């Protein structure tokens, strides 16, 4: 589904990704771990199409076509979703109206008519119930004075509504208490199918107890230096990253 080959990216002349290779197949959950500043969030941003970053080398294939030249919205139309570490506040636009706009814009790009209002309403009810969201929450302005947990839950709600092929979760666990974390992870798990894939970006192994990855990658200094199964995450939690860096040098 997603195939990244020798990806180099920089921002304002500073090289951040220095040759990332990654392949994710339908039905899989991958996790990317790594120390602060290793390029995890940059990778997420670049795949989602953030124009702040310049891709200087390599390619990103999604469903076998190169998406490097596509804008972020065009990538979303193809089924890529990025859950933000720090979701943006949009006063005056309710959660419901925002998601309606997003869904209908995606449908428009796919040559479909607007989703009928009753179908939309049904879907909103169903997905918000799944995430244990209060109805009042839906009429509030998007992310405005939301708590950290509410923001993350709202990201997963949007993901549930948009049903992407590839969901990238950037530090979805940061700022969440354990109960909120369980709800969010539970939501992500319920959305898994054999046809979609999830890329989890995290500092901590904690989230991976709930969203269990098929493959764990370690990103250090802009490169994936090791990949393994879920046990690698546990090992990183115990031993940190330094031993891997040393292993690299040897």
């Amino acid at each position: 589904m997603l195939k990244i080959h020798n990806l180099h990216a920089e921002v304002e002349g500073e090289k951040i990704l220095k040759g990332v290779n990654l392949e994710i197949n339908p039905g899989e959950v991958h996790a990317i771990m790594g120390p602060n500043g290793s390029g995890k969030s940059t990778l997420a941003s670049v795949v989602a199409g953030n124009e702040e970053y310049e891709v200087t080398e390599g390619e990103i294939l999604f469903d076998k076509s190169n998406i490097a030249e596509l804008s972020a919205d065009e990538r979303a139309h193809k089924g890529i979703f990025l859950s933000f570490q720090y979701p943006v506040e949009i006063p005056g636009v309710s959660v419901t109206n925002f998601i309606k706009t997003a869904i209908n814009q995606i449908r428009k790009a796919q040559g479909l008519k607007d989703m009928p209002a009753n179908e939309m309403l049904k879907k909103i009810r169903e997905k918000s119930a799944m995430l244990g969201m209060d109805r009042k929450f839906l009429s509030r302005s998007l992310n405005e004075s939301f708590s950290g947990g509410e923001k993350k839950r709202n990201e997963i709600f949007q993901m549930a509504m948009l049903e992407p092929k590839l969901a990238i979760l950037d530090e979805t666990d940061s700022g969440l208490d354990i109960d909120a974390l369980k709800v969010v992870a539970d939501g992500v798990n319920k959305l898994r199918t054999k046809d979609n894939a999830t890329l989890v970006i995290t500092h901590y192994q904690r989230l991976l107890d709930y969203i269990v990855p098929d493959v764990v990658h370690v990103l250090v200094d802009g490169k994936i230096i090791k990949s393994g199964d879920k046990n690698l995450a546990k090992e990183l939690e115990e031993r940190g990253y330094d031993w891997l860096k040393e292993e690299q040098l040897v």
Partner: protein
Amino acid sequence: MKLKEKLLSSYLAFEENIDLENDIHNIRDEAIKFFEHSGFPDKKQEAWKYTSLNAILKEDYSIFPKKEETIEYRDIKKYCIHDIDTYQIVFVDGIYASHLSQTTHDKFDACLMSSALNKAKYKSIIKKYFNKVAPQESLTALNTAFSYEGAYIKIPKGVSAEKPIQILNFSTGNEHALMIQPRNLIIVEDNAQVQIIERHQSLTDNAVLTNSVTEIFAGKNANIDYYKIQNDKVTSSLIDNTYISQDRDSEVSMHTFSFGGKLTRNNLNFYQNGSNINSILKGVTIIEGKQHVDHNTLVHHRKPHCESHQDYKGIFAEKSTGVFNGKVLVDKIAQKTDAYQSNNNILIDDQATINSKPQLEIFADDVKCSHGCTIGQLDEEALFYMKTRGIPHKEARALLMYAFANNVLNSVKIPEIKKRITKQIALKIGVQLGFDL
């Protein structure tokens, strides 16, 4: 002939058609003398530093319009708030159009300034209110000198106008260039309430210069909810002078939506003459091309325990220019004043300009006064966020601009206006938002 000279000689012609015995005539006379002495304001004056009238004063305006009778309701419908029941006082080329209007003398007066100025039964009211809050300033004096027509609204004690009143000024372009000077007088007595919508609209591309003066008197515990919709052709200019006198416990809220016009200058002045007054000034400006919008506001806190809230938002594209010059004056006696002023601007293009100048002059020592001013671009992170949800660039920008302007719209009490303004914002940015906000 220069416009000033033309106006001065036109005044003599104007005098031939009015009743010189009327008390008002002395006021007009004094005003024209003042204008003769002062002339038009220029950039040397602090209040006009960023707004030059030179370009618009060059036109050879007709001062006395011809009566235009071919305009029908269907020509003006889209400029009216037509989906709710309202009173309408409509002027075409400065002349009252009875066939387009719906006035009343039933529980209150919503009628014509020309009647109020000339009929004996209004004499005492005119004497009490006319030109009493408007100061002797060049453009206002010019309007006073030629004051003849406009809207006259008087809501008596305790009466609540059951539907909004629209004051609509259309120009038809039957002259190559036309100058009109509407003069409105609005008196809302103690415990009375009214909602008013004012609009100036040209129906062709011929040049129009409107120099409008509105005097508003809010009695004790009166409530006035006023909307100015400025969305005119790029060949039309508007100088809108509004003077509001508030008595104790009153609330006056003024929303100004400036979406178009060659040059728009709003001189909006609030005078608080009692305690426990609330003055609300809100504005949304969205312009492009070479359009210019200047908000020049004054809130004069003259009594203790009063509030004022100013919130102006501007979005400037292409080579458009904006000015915000907001003055808050707090007299020594006006203790416990709570005055808030905010002016936020987004510049869409490199060549757009905004000059924002808050002025606080505070002579009392126990007050809460704050102001803030920002100038920035659209938030790239927010745009990216929306795009990752599949919302394309144009629509994402529209949504952000809407969000930016939104808290100004929050205080709009007439839903039809809110809806229209929202649509207008979407239209200006060239998108449909796809839902009702």
